Every structure is written in C-alpha cells, then in structure tokens.
C-alpha cells in the first residue's frame, strides 16, 4: 500500500462522473473483462469508491456468466499500486478503517467465489491491495516489463494486508514463503515472482491480454495447495509442522523488532489463526488487527515516513534550478565507498568511468563492483544478463582519461582536505564547464574543499552512506556559492540512483554527521561519568536504534569517527572528546583494525577494558535513562540544524535521520517525535540540562511548543 494521495487540484465533480471499475462483456472468445481505471489517478490506488465499483462489476460478471473473466488495468504500465494512503490520515476512526478492510475482504471473497475462471493480467506494480486482488483470482499472469512488481508491502507502513492477503498468500505458496514475503515487504520482479509461485506465467507485455484471455478460456478453477513441495504443504497444513514454522517466525521477528513494531507479529497471528481455524476466522483477525494498527502511533509514523519518501522524489528538487542531463558519471577513488557508488550508478543505467592511483587499485575496485553485482544477482535483484551488463558499464583507468565526457564526477578519495583539493584541481583541467563535481565527504565543509577551485560554483557535496547499495539516503550538500542547477543535478542523480535525497547547508558535519557526532559525543560523556560500554549500547538497541553508538564508532572506524567528532565539536565551540584519539594512539582503530570500544574475537565481541582504564574512575555513578538522554541529544541537535537553516524542512530532517542514521522508525523521525511528545521531551531536556550541563538545554523552538509539522 504505497500510493500517494491524488493531486490536490482534483475536482470532486470530475471523479463522480465515471466509475473506477467497469465490467466489459465477453467478446467472441467468451471471456469477459473487469477493467480497473481510477479517474485522475495514475496508479489505480484503492479507495472506498473503487471497491464499490468493483463490487458492482463483479455482480455484473456473475450475472453475465461468461466462460472466463480477466481482471485487468485500464492504465498503461500500471496495475493497482495499493490503497490510497490518504484514507488513513489522522481523523478516520478505527472502526471505519476496520469496516473498510472488511468490505474489501467481502468484495474479494465475492471475486474468489465466482463460478468461472478468473485471471489477473498484471501489467505494472501490483502491491498491497493490488496483489490481494490478483490473489483472489484463479490465475495470475504478469508482463515482463521493468516496472512490474508484486508484493504485500503493508508491514513497511506498520500495517498488515487488509483484504485477505494474510489468508490467500500462504494457501497459494505455502506458509514459509508467504511469511517471508509479508514480513520483508519484498517487491518481486516478474521472473522472481514466477519462481516463488506468486504468479503463474510471465509473458511479453504485448501479449499479456491475449495470454490472460487464453488462460481464462481454458484454465480450471484452482484450489490452492499451500505450497509447491511436500515440505511446504506440510508446513502450511500439518499443524505440528506449521507450529514449528510459526514459532521460528515469531522468535525471529521479536528479536528484530524488539516489540516496538506490532505489525509483523499481527501478520503472523492472522496467518496462523486462518490456517488453524479457517479463512473466515483469519479474515476477522486480519480486519481487526488492521484497524488497530492503522490508528496506532507506529502505524502512523511508518506510513508518514513512506509518504514523505515518495513525496521527496519531487520535493527534493524544489527551489533548486534545472538538473543538467547526466549520461556519464566519473568516480575518483575506487575504494570501499567509490566502488559502491560506481556500482549503484552503473545499476541505475549510467555509464561509469572510474579512476584510482594505479591499475592495480582500479582492478580491485572493478572486482568489488563485479562481486556486489553478482551477489545481488544471486539474491534475485537482477537477472544474470542484466548483472553482466551492469558490470560491463563500468570502465576505469589510472588517470583522468575518459573524464572529459563526464557529466557528473563524484570524488570518494581519502577524507583529507589537501587530497580532495588536489583531486579538484586535476579534474578542473579536464572537465567540461557544465560538469558537476560532487564530493563524498562526511564532514569536511564543501566550501573548504572548493576554496582553491577555478569554478567553485559547480562543486557540491553528495554524502553517501555505507554500504552504498543498501542505504537509501544521499545527503546533498549545497554550499552558499553553488549554482542552483549544479545542486539540482546532484539531486537528480541521487533520485535516478533510486535513493532519497535531502538537501542541507554546508557546515561542519552538515546534518547527519553533525547530529550523529553530537549524540556519540554525549555517549562518551556518559562513559566518563561511569556508564558501561555495554549498558550504553544495550539501552540504545532496546530503545530501537539498530546499533549502539559505541559499536557504531567501531564499525565506522575510530579515525573517521574521531575526525568527524572533532570537526563538529570545534564548530560548536565545545571540547572534543579525547577518548577516541587515546584509543587510536594505542592501535585500537576499529572493528577490523585491532578493535576499538570492543575487542573482536571471531564472532564474539567483548568490551575493551582499556577504555575504562583510559577514562579513569567514574565521576558520577550511572543513573537515569541512557536512551532518553542520547536520543533527545539527537533530537535537540536536529532542531538546531533546522533553526540554523542547515535543514530546509522537518520532513528532510526526519528522512535523513531515519534513512541515513537509523533513528528509530517507529518514532517517525526526530521532528515527528518532537511534535508527538513535545511536553515530555522539553521537560526531560530541562531536567537533564540542570543535572548534566547546559548543552542539553532544549532549543527555543522546542520550548515554544510550535509544532514542526502542520496537519
């Protein structure tokens, strides 16, 4: 369910003029069609009106009694992308939402109960409710087109499927696979969906309708078996085997979500009850859970995040000038980050030319790119041929040959101003004037990097997160002297790479590194006050952070983290913590470099005793809510970034924090959290400031109680 609400300039009268779903009587083949085509909506999002029209169309089909029925979309390259999310906005009551779910379940039950064969002809994304419609058919055919995806994506929004998905999918492909799809919210490309058993045939787009009609003319009514193999069917229908599979799924989910996210468990529950007690019981639980989750805070937060992410695809470019066309991307530095960036750029269709100091370094970088792409192909992200093509799109050399045709050059060299300035100088000898240079730095101000450049107006920052292929965020940094078109070009590149782009001001640590370093700095303070490494990290992961701050420092590397911390502290005029440099001096540089705050022995991780020795005796005994203090430090600093104009909007602040730094998604982001619990947060910060220092005092805008988000 990931369809954004339709355009605001919609006129109510328009919508009432024609139905969203029409019944088309059978032609000579004896096969009739139901065509879904929601007016003024490019993606066929489901709303109450559509369900009503659908019910009417199904009734008409039943009366007409054709030989078979095809459920198709009337839109080019779009099937049904899920429910219209604006229906779930604050204000709709739980009982209304539950009622909507039940009515949609009823409509799809009617579809499934038709006495003749039904075939779904999937020509575009069939997600959430869209897939549930297809699951209620006997047969599903998909077009082999690049944008076709199927999946039950509701858990991403903190919800569960609400129209029978928790009941029909396990009965179709078996319990284990169905749980995997529902809990991961994965979107499958056609061939992968075919292998998983979700769809029955993949055809060329031009043949889709004809193939669907053929199937509708000759397929039998299907009784789903609950899996392709004996083992899968046993796991679905044989109670002891099913119980085992459910137990596994529940314990894995609990471990991952730490009971902050109720939706996955609710999904498992609806599946379990349906298989144990029958579909009606399962549907009942599904509808009730859906209503419950939809009005809960977590559901609201996750849905809001998804909507912000979708909106950001256009919103990121607002006020930024016109992006220049990009066909060729140059990457300077093919190390860990550079090769990751090159791989994502190539996977997005850009031609990539890499450069490193010598042929051996280039060879290593290209090898990394090949491995990343091959691994993704193994997981089914790409087909084998596409994977080969992606790898072949990247070439490289030990010099800047081939960079003259670059439209965008990303430098990912060593994090040092002198090195970066030298790279810029070399690039400027070779690049065309319209080419944009983007620096992948996590904390060095772009204005500093560009200080000696001949044309600094085309130099911006693109802060990628690691690992590049997984992390969805790119922080685009806009120096004061940058041309609006250059910034727009970087943002457009980020969007083309499938990432979410936020645009922030140029300053020490920009937004993400600044907020994170501040929080980590506060964690060091807690350490010196006497809290243990394990206590700090455990408190944070239990609160919902993916990784504790001290383990994070180990993984980022102590030198990088220390440098970022110093840059940010210096800018804020506070003393930089010394513990990191002290550890580095003793050879503790990070997880794969001798250990850091932890020592690593194979897969085991133990706190490094040297840390306590270096810090000396505790100053204040441990007391108070660690997670609260650190998370609120984060929030406070994020708000400062908005106040100072580093951030353009609270929306970008939430996106950056959640997508780039792992801020607990169930809170929706620092600004949404601040709005939801303003009073508690301000009181807590005031209390902390009094006890631990002025730096923790809430900002003026927090104290003002003015909400960050309106509506």
């Amino acid at each position, binding site marked *: 369910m990931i369809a954004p609400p339709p355009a605001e300039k919609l006129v109510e009268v328009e919508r009432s003029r024609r139905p969203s779903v029409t019944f088309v009587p059978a032609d000579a083949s004896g096969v009739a069609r139901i065509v879904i085509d929601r007016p003024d909506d490019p993606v066929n999002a489901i709303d109450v009106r559509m369900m009503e029209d659908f019910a009417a169309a199904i009734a008409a089909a039943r009366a007409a009694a054709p030989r078979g029925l095809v459920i198709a979309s009337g839109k080019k390259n779009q099937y049904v992308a899920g429910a219209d999310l604006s229906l779930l906005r604050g204000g709709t009551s739980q009982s209304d939402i539950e009622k909507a779910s039940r009515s949609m379940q009823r409509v799809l039950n009617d579809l499934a109960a038709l006495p003749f064969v039904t075939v779904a002809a999937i020509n575009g994304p069939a997600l959430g409710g869209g897939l549930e419609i297809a699951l209620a058919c006997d047969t599903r055919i998909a077009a082999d087109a690049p944008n076709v995806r199927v999946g039950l994506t509701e858990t991403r929004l903190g919800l569960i499927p609400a129209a029978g998905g928790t009941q029909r999918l396990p009965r179709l492909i078996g319990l284990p696979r169905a749980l995997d799809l529902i809990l991961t919210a994965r979107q499958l490309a056609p061939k992968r969906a075919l292998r998983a058993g979700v769809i029955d045939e993949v055809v060329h787009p031009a043949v889709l309708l004809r193939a669907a009609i053929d199937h509708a003319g000759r397929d039998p009514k299907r009784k789903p078996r609950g899996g392709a193999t004996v083992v899968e069917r046993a796991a679905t229908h044989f109670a002891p085997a099913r119980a085992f599979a459910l137990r596994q799924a529940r314990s894995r989910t609990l471990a991952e979500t730490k009971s902050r996210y109720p939706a996955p468990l609710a999904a498992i529950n609806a599946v379990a009850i349906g298989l144990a007690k029958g579909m009606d019981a399962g549907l009942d639980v599904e509808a009730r859970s859906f209503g419950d989750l939809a009005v809960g805070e977590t559901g609201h937060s996750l849905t809001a995040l998804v909507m912000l992410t979708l909106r950001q695809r256009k919103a990121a470019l607002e006020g930024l000038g016109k992006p220049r066309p990009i066909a060729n991307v140059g990457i300077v530095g093919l190390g860990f980050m550079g090769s990751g960036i090159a791989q994502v750029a190539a996977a997005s269709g850009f031609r990539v030319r890499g450069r490193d100091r010598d042929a051996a370094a280039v060879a290593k970088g290209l*090898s990394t790119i090949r491995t990343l792409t091959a691994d993704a192909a193994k997981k089914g992200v790409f087909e084998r041929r596409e994977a080969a093509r992606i790898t072949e799109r990247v070439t490289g050399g030990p010099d800047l040959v081939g960079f003259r045709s670059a439209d965008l050059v990303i430098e990912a060299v060593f994090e040092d101003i002198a090195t970066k300035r030298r790279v810029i100088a070399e690039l400027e000898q070779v690049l065309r004037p319209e080419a944009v240079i983007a620096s992948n730095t996590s904390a060095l101000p772009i204005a500093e990097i560009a200080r000696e450049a001949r044309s600094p107006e085309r130099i911006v920052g693109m802060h990628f997160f690691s690992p590049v292929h997984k992390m969805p965020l790119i922080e685009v940094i806009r120096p004061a002297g940058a041309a609006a078109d250059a910034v727009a070009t970087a943002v457009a590149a980020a969007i083309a790479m499938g990432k979410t782009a936020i645009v922030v001001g140029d300053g020490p640590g920009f937004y993400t590194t600044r907020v994170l370093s501040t929080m980590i700095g506060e964690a060091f303070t807690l350490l010196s006050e006497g809290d243990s490494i394990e206590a700090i990290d455990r408190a944070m992961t239990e609160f919902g952070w993916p990784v504790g701050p001290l383990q994070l420092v180990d993984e980022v590397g102590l030198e990088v983290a220390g440098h970022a911390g110093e840059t940010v502290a210096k800018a804020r005029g506070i003393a930089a913590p010394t513990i990191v440099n002290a550890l580095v001096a003793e050879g503790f540089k990070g997880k794969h470099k001798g250990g850091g705050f932890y020592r690593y022995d194979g897969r085991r991780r133990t706190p490094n005793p040297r840390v306590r020795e270096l810090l000396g005796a505790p100053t204040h005994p441990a007391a108070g809510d660690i997670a609260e203090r650190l998370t609120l430090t984060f929030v406070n600093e994020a708000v400062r970034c908005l106040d100072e104009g580093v951030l353009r909007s609270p929306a970008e602040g939430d996106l950056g924090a959640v997508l780039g730094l792992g801020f607990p998604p169930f809170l929706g982001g620092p600004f949404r959290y601040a709005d939801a619990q303003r009073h508690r947060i301000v009181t807590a910060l005031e209390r902390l400031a009094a006890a631990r220092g002025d730096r923790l005092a809430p900002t003026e805008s927090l104290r003002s109680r003015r909400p960050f988000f309106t509506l």
Partner: protein
Amino acid sequence: MPRVLILGGARTPFVRAGTEFADLDVLDLARAATSEALARTELDPGQVDEVIFGNVARPVAYHNLAREVVLSLSMPTRIPAFTVGLACASACVAITSAADHIAGGNADVVIAGGSESLTNVPLTLTPRLARGLIAASQAKSLPAKARSLADVRASDIAPVAPGIRETSTGLTMGESAERMAAMNAVSREDQDAWALRSHRLAAAGWDDGRLAREVGPVYLDGHAVTADNHIRRDSTPEKLASLRPVFDREHGTITAGNASPLTDGAAAVVLASEARARALGLEALAAVRSYAYAAVDPADQLLIAPAYAIPIALGRAGLTLDDIDLFEMHEAFAAQVLSTLAVLEQNGVGRVPVEKLNVMGGSIALGHPFGATGARIVLTLANEMRRRGARYGLATACAAGGNGAAIILERAA
C-alpha cells in the same frame, strides 16, 4: 571527398594464448580495447555511427563480435555493427571499410578494430559424430537414440582442432613460409637476427614508455594485466640458434623463436571525418591516405602479397617507396618479412630502409592475435608518426589465402 582521420585508439596487452587471458573470451578483449579507445579519444559513444571488428576464430556465440561489443558496452543500440574476416589482415579490412564509409559520406565516426582469443578456439565435431548426435536428439525413443550413434567410432570422438592449413594447397602456413625462405634465399641466421631485433626493439619501446601509451590495462579478478608478456629480454643469437625447426624438421629454418606466437589480444582504432572531428574539437593522430589489397597464388609464395599491394597503394597515393618515412609490417615469420623486402627490391618498387621498419619491434616479439594485428600496426604507426613528425607511413599485413593489405597514412595536420 571527406578526409578520413584516425583520432586515436588503444589495444589490450598482447599475451601468449592460454596465459593471462585464459579466462577471457574474444568479446571481453574486444570490449576492453573499445572502451579504452573511446576513453582515450574522449569520444561520447553517442557519436559513433558504426563499429566494425575483425576476428578469425569465430565462437558460435559471437559470430558477429562487433555488434556484441556495441550491446555489451551499453553503446546506443542504434549503432549497426558487423564483423569481417581476412585472416591476419582482418582488422585492416575493418579499418579500410571504415575509411571507405567515411570517405563516401556514409558515416562520420567509426570504430574499427580486431580481437582474437585462441584460448577458446571453437572445436568442431567429426562429421560422423555430429550427424549421430543430431539424429539422436531428434529420435523419440531411447533405443532409437542409441541406434543413431551406432556408427560412431572411437576415433570420431576426438574434437577437430581448426588447422591453419591452406585448403587449396594442403600446406600449413609454416610449410608455405619455409618455401618462401628457400625461394628468396633467406638464411636461418638472418631470420634469427630479425627475431632478436624484434625483441630488442619491443623491449626498448616498452622501457621508454612509447608502447605503454597505446596499451590499456585489462582488469580481471581483482588484478590488472598491463604489459605484453611474450617479449624476451634475455634473447641471444645462441639461444635462438639452438631451437629446432618446427615445420620442416630435416631442412627447415623456421623455429618457434623466429615466428610470431599464438596470442590473445584486441585493438581498436577510432576513425572520423575531418568535419566531425573539427566539430567535436578532437585532434587526430593521422589521416588515411590510400590503401590496397592484392592476392597471389597460394601455391606460389603464400605470404608475399603485401609486396604487390604496396605499389598499388603507393600509386593510388601518388607516392613512391622513398616518400615513406615509417613502416609497420606484420611479422608472421621473420622469413616472410625478409622475403617481402627482397621481392620489393627485385620488382623495382624500392628498398625499405630497415631503420624505419618496425621501430618498436613487431609481431614476433609483441605477439599476433590474428584478428587484431591489423589494428595494432595502424595504431602504432599513427602514434609513432606523430611522435616523429613523419609525413607518410605504410602499414602492411599478409594473410592466409595469399592475400595482402597495404595502408598508407599521412600526417593529420
């Protein structure tokens, strides 16, 4: 008629077959050379009108190698491409075809090159085994399948390696070259001396960086191959003299040392019309002045045809042999090169000054990927002409079947 310019190009390192490129195929090598050629000329692939590649040993999967290069490099799919064959002069045909298309106004930018991977030479089945397998695949029952293969004998099962034997004479190329040596009285000593010269000059060409400049690294498995690997810096007349003749064990003069080795590699050259080069602001290395192909009776002197192509090309250019400042001659065998020089003098075409010939060594030392050599000699010639400020250059290659190619380049500006 539009003037045809050579904007630049690149080649992969040339390595002995079965060594460092053993896991690459002919497309991998062609792709490496082409992408490097594009990068070095700073040419946007969108500007390319055509791609033509030469290739001798054709794997079934890559029967049109040039088009596979376009598609696998994600060049615009509208670029037509075709693959040509004239044995060891295949890339010459690619280059002269490209020149003709540009001169005729039918293209503005063409990539022409060649590639060879002898490591995965296609093996064929014996006719009886092939027939048996096809019949078996079409048979409906197991007994019927078994019957289809009943005629196949043990001796049919060994695959047939493609021979380098002339169909019309039944002689291998080496045997033909022995005859040339005898007919032109080219001694063993002279051949070994030529081979030594090839290695010595090639080593010098690498050491002073000239050859390195036209070679782009090939990246595989996390490491880079950056240099030709056949050049022998430790070669001596004694070592060469100690080698046994391979084609005529009794009375022969041709050894592994004074013949070109089986090699994997690729090379690509970018040609453009003068107008397009100017419009793109790109400088050229050289221009194509004229070319000629000639052929002789394979039963006579199989590899002598360049000696006959040269005067035709010179005539078309309005030049004499003395006007040529620099020569690149493919060294299939030292015997063949020396024979060619003798015949040119005999026929009154002229004397090639040895100090202007193969100045950074030749195929004997650098290697000879069949389909690619024609592009290597043109690329090397153009680059060295630029360095020396030479006015005219001549590249020639002999080929199986009694064919020969000659291409004359002139200074660009």
